[in-house]
């Protein structure tokens, strides 16, 4: 998907999140993971770190090299994704208390990720991975 399509999808998910209350924390955190994942893919494509037909599904499945490059170039977007991904085990798959605070943080992170990715510019530097 193109960066523009990813950002549109993130904004669409945010509109749904805005219809939910903080007591719907599970789906807000999941919406955060999905929306910010679209932002991370947009960042990877804008920066030329990954082709538009090579999306990631979670930060955990990027290579260490990709992660390092992305953290240098778009660390704010990656931080948003990692924060929300860390909420999934306790608040979505588990039953930790204070889920409303997780929902509030996820809302903040979705907006921040969309804002950050909108400011990125192409890097225009070729990247290659060392394959022995």
């Amino acid at each position: 998907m193109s960066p523009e399509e990813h950002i549109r999808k993130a904004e669409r998910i945010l509109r749904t999140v805005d219809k939910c209350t903080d007591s719907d924390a599970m789906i807000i955190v999941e919406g955060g993971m999905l929306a910010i994942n679209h932002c991370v893919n947009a960042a990877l494509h804008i920066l030329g770190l990954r082709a538009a037909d090579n999306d990631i599904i979670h930060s955990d499945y990027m290579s260490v090299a990709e992660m390092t490059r992305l953290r240098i170039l778009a660390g704010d977007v990656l931080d948003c994704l990692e924060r929300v991904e860390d909420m999934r085990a306790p608040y979505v798959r588990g039953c930790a208390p204070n889920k409303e605070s997780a929902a509030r943080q996820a809302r903040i992170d979705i907006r921040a990720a969309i804002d950050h990715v909108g400011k990125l510019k192409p890097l225009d530097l070729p990247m290659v991975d060392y394959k022995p």
Partner: protein
Amino acid sequence: MEIERHLEKIQQYEDVISRLDPIEDFELWFWAQLNSATNALNAVLHRLKVTDPGPCFSHQIPGVFVEAEPVDGKWKKVIVAPGDIIHIGFPPLKQEVPACIDPFNHELEVLENFRETHVRGGEMPTEADVETCRAAYAKCMAIAYKLMEEGAPRQ
């Protein structure tokens, strides 16, 4: 997680599903069904004694769990036997899964087919897509509740 907690989560997801618009909010309307069905699957697996509820919460990396109590605000990751699974076959189970789960898994796969195209990908939902998801979810839950009530049928 204990069966009662899974059932509570199903109720919470179904409440959200009822308030969202299946077309305008498709991504999270669909995702709520997917997560609700996965909770039902875990409840069934616990009920049939295929898996134990376990003290830890599942992480998105298959096989990784987090401890239920944070330490200094951090959720400690551990590798333990499941516990709850996150998708069919993730993580794989040592225990044999009874064949009575197969119809549930078939319907869950129908739902899961929309994940890459319509949620992670850019396809927009149609009324037909909504009906396919709605029907698959309803079948999943009917199968799950029957298995939870009756247990595994005798072979």
